């Protein structure tokens, strides 16, 4: 919210510098986002009178003007404005003057005519958007006065962030009150008085509130005989300086008073109201209503209306209707100053997308006690700027009147929560500075009544917050909690995540953190293993590309992979550890999420060193990384089975990773169709593991096993198998063969070969088998005998040929 320093000065004696005040406000909860000096340059721009206007001899559109800024001396200026006329008062910038837009005026010759300076438009002075012609100054402006002085535009504008709890500060008066409380500078309270005519408003107008819980107070003032026209320039520029566009004298006054006192006002053309009657009520049923911006709005039964003669004339607190708005011919004004329920205004304004300065204030709560004063202030200003007479008295319906509830403040509680003792007299004086009434109650307790404008203060803790704001957070001693030394450190899951991240990065993969949002297309391309999972859709996504939550982390990772490949990076290796999301296909409103890990390798792991440039990763490079990962997590019982049914993967180059027979994920090549569609290499290797599931197989503790005391004896085993044969079967057979299970320590494939002299359709596999007994040294004879039997059993059992 923008606040004018000059305006503040009308309500508080400002002896501190702008910066010092801004700093104090910021430390106490009103953050000053910017401090802007305005109109300083306009001190050098002067009021001039146009004495004579002649056509420029060399250009149709230019005039040669004779002007004066003091009685005696005339100046000749070339001017291009169409509205220049003899007798007008206009702004004049002499050579040497710098305008707010940075332009420096110089004496010049324009098409052969010397011009000593420039006459200025509103836009050239940085005062407003009008560039159609010269800014016309009031005819009573004193020649030679500075524009800054005349229009009161030499000002500083503070932009203050108003937190949602501080509706009371959404006005000049409110900020002034806060400054006064925080700095001790004296608050001024300009008297508001209205000169009234003989006729009583109450005799002319009736006001009825049907829903007192939605409208606690409604004040109306009637003003007759106004003349609509533009406001004085100084009023217009004051409004502009805080971001409000001027309309006409009456509307400008309502805005002016809203900015000044935080009370939104509405001016009706009283003659255009259907009846001399105002009723505040709910719409009652769904209906359509056209607001003054010409838009037809869909209203709901609970929306609050201002009606007259049975017709809606305004959407309460939000926007009036075109039928009764103030127009150029308006003569009678019904000025509305009311207090509406914050949540009602918010709900309607939000639904209709009609957030305004008025709704901003109503939503945050206004001062119900100040409703009448604001009406008086506006009535007085309307008479000043638009003429007319104010009818005697206000029509003031105030069903919501109730005393502010007192709050019991325990002084001990203040010390307990802040960690510092504050003496009772200090507490009392701080709260009083904030406008609260404070009276002693029982021992150690004070009764505090906040002012009517502090609707945010209802509890003891709210009062304590006020005290510490006044004390200053910096003055609270910094302490460490008195707490037992405890804490379990990182939990096992978090430690596993860290282990995984470090192992993968050491293996050459960089970590990506892509969005968890995803496009419906990517979700279709990478469906979840569990068919009962459907995507979680976002009702208001940033874009169509981000309208769902990802079902698989691969969907998101592939996008990151692609971005890198498009950056001409050939070898890219990424991983990501993050959540997948789903909703249940059968039950609505049930959502699930789980941590997954995905790896994506395009072409290969980036290598360094001579001769590595062309090296491409294959399935086994990526599988090796996953094996290392599982080993570092100490997961055992891992098997790999071909998986031809995962739609996004190459059916012949993909495996399911099983632990104790349960699938925990998939590893393989991106399906060539997808590679084409996504414009990626066919050698794109992908892994997705369900970590939530996988980590349940991590043993909680590692036990130590004695080192073997007797030597190992190695024997090789070479067999010929069908090309389709899974080498894993041999390993499993050996492990499970009951006769040797106690004496075989391990079996490992160390070579595989196909091609001559191996017949077509066959392959040769070579395994090494490690024999060891726990209690003795095995003899060669013994091992040979065992090995012989194993080979026999194996070839018979699996239908293999020994080589």
């Amino acid at each position: 919210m923008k606040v004018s320093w000059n305006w503040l000065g009308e309500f508080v004696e400002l002896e501190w510098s702008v910066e010092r005040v801004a700093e104090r406000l910021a430390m106490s909860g009103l953050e000053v986002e910017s401090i802007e000096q305005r109109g300083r340059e306009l001190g050098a721009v002067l009021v001039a009178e146009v004495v004579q206007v002649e056509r420029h001899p060399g250009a149709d559109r230019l005039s040669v003007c004779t002007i004066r800024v003091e009685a005696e001396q005339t100046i000749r200026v070339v001017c291009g404005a169409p509205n220049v006329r003899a007798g007008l008062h206009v702004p004049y910038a002499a050579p040497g003057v710098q305008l707010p837009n940075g332009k420096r005026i110089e004496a010049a010759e324009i098409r052969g005519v010397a011009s000593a300076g420039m006459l200025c438009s509103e836009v050239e002075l940085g005062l407003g958007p009008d560039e159609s012609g010269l800014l016309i100054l009031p005819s009573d402006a004193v020649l030679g006065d500075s524009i800054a002085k005349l229009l009161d535009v030499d000002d500083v504008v503070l932009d203050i962030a108003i937190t949602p709890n501080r509706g009371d500060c959404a006005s000049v008066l409110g900020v002034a009150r806060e400054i006064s409380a925080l700095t001790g500078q004296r608050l001024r309270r300009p008297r508001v008085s209205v000169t009234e005519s003989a006729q009583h408003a109450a005799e002319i107008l009736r006001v009825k509130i049907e829903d007192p819980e939605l409208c606690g107070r409604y004040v109306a003032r009637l003003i007759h005989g106004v003349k609509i026209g533009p406001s004085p320039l100084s009023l217009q520029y004051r409004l502009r300086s805080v971001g409000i566009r001027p309309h006409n004298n009456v509307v400008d006054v309502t805005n002016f008073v809203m900015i000044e006192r935080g009370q939104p006002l509405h001016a009706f053309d009283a003659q255009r109201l259907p009846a001399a009657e105002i009723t505040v009520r709910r719409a009652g049923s769904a209906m359509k209503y056209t607001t003054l911006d010409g838009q037809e709005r869909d209203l709901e039964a609970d929306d609050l209306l201002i009606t007259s003669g049975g017709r809606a004339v305004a959407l309460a607190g939000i926007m009036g209707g075109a039928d009764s708005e103030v127009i150029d011919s308006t003569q009678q004004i019904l000025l509305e100053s009311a207090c509406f329920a914050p949540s009602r205004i918010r709900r309607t304004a939000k639904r209709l997308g009609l957030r305004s300065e008025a709704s901003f204030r109503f939503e945050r709560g206004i001062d119900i006690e100040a409703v009448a004063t604001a009406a008086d202030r506006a009535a007085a200003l309307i008479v000043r700027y638009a003429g007319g007479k104010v009818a005697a008295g206000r029509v003031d319906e105030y069903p919501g009147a109730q005393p502010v509830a007192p709050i019991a403040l325990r002084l001990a509680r203040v010390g307990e929560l802040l960690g510092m003792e504050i003496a009772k007299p200090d507490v009392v004086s701080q709260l009083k500075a904030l406008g609260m009434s404070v009276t002693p109650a029982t021992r150690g307790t004070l009764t505090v009544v906040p002012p009517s404008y502090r609707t945010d203060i209802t509890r003891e803790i709210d009062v304590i917050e006020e005290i510490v704001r006044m004390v200053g957070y910096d003055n609270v001693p910094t302490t460490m909690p008195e707490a037992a030394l405890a804490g379990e450190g990182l939990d096992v899951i978090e430690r596993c995540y860290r282990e995984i991240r470090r192992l993968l990065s050491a293996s050459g993969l960089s970590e990506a953190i892509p969005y968890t949002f995803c496009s419906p297309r990517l979700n279709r391309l990478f469906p979840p293993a569990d068919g009962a999972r459907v995507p979680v859709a976002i009702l208001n996504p940033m874009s169509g590309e981000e309208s769902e939550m990802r079902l698989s982390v691969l969907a998101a990772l592939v996008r990151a992979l692609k971005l890198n490949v498009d950056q001409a990076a050939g070898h890219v290796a990424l991983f990501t550890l993050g959540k997948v999301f789903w909703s249940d296909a059968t039950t609505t409103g049930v959502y699930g999420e789980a941590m997954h890990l995905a790896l994506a390798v395009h072409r290969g792991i980036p290598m360094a060193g001579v001769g590595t440039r062309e090296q491409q990763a294959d399935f086994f490079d990526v599988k090796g990384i996953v094996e290392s990962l599982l080993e570092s997590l100490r997961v055992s019982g891992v098997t790999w089975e071909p998986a031809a049914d995962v739609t996004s993967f190459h059916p012949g180059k993909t495996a399911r990773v099983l632990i104790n027979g349960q699938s925990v994920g998939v590893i393989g090549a991106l399906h060539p169709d997808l590679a084409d569609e996504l414009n990626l290499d066919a050698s794109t290797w992908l892994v997705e593991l369900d970590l939530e599931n996988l980590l349940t197989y991590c043993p909680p503790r590692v036990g130590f096993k004695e080192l073997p005391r007797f030597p190992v004896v190695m024997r090789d085993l070479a067999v010929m198998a069908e090309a389709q044969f899974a080498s894993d079967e041999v390993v499993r057979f050996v492990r499970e063969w009951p006769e040797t299970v106690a004496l075989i320590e391990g079996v490992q494939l160390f070579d595989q070969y196909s091609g001559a002299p191996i017949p077509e359709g066959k392959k040769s596999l070579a395994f090494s088998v490690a024999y060891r007994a726990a209690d003795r040294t095995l003899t060669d004879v013994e091992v040979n005998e065992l090995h012989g039997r194993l080979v026999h059993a194996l070839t018979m059992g699996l239908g293999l040929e020994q080589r």
Partner: protein
Amino acid sequence: MKEELERIRREALTALAAVSSEADAEQLRLRFLGRKGELTTVVRGLRDVPADERPAVGVYLNEIKTEVEEQIDRVVSQARSQARAAQVARERIDVTVPGKRRQIGHLHPLTQTMEQIVDIFVGLGFNVATGPDVEDDYHNFTALNFPADHPARDMQDTFFIDESHILRTHTSPVQIRVMEALKAPLRVVVPGTTYRHDSDVTHSPMFHQVEGFMVDRKVTFGDLKGVLTLAMQRLFGSGTRVRFRASFFPFTEPSAEVDIGCVICKGAEPSCRICKGTGWLEVLGSGLIDPNVFEAVGYNPEEVSGFAFGMGVERIAMLKYQINDIRLYSNNDVRFLRQF
């Protein structure tokens, strides 16, 4: 006999003086000391020496044998070291050729920052907790003292999933979940992904927060200041200045924004782009937990008090590494990732 020995000795030493290769020296070893070597042969004649002279001749013989052997060893050893010197002088590799390796991968700067923050609080005795990203309105707002239809809800532009579910706008709902499940005392830190409907150079629709809170008997505002000052100094360096400013969050009261002294200009540069000349950078929000929050989870605010805080990981990392565009985080360009 003695003369014979003397002759052999001279002959051996003369011959040795003429050789320099290991092979020639070994040849001489055979000639003089081998099984049929000259000295060996002489030894066999020792039995012809009169018994009384035998010991003296024997001693002399041994002296000569030792001397010749030592001389041969010396020549061999010299020859070997010359040959080795010649070898190593010959063998040269280009040590500037790069090593052969898989290039290491890099952890995302957000992960590194988040781990660092979490570790600081774990070091202060906090435990780690997490919660769902798809959250219900109650935990994200209502229980945290955001009344329905209150402007405080505008502080956090929300992604909606259905009438009662949203993408969590902050990690604070985990406060509620933890307090619903556990009794005080609590010291908890919550890293997580959060979402707001906002996107520009400093705002990302998905971002990360680390939340933390402590609940116990007699936790004070001074304790909040103490813990967060310590944490910020661990995060940004021990000399970091920290200040607390009044602010508003629905779920804390009193609420405080925490600023640190500008990490770039140290408050000395009025034209500093990072702190806009203020000398201060806002890094986290905090406050004493509002009694309404305690009541929502069934705690008695008269018995326990506590503080809570939350910080944006993206912002902290931007300040730590001087990253100027938040979109770099989600693009995951390896040229960016490699820098961390």
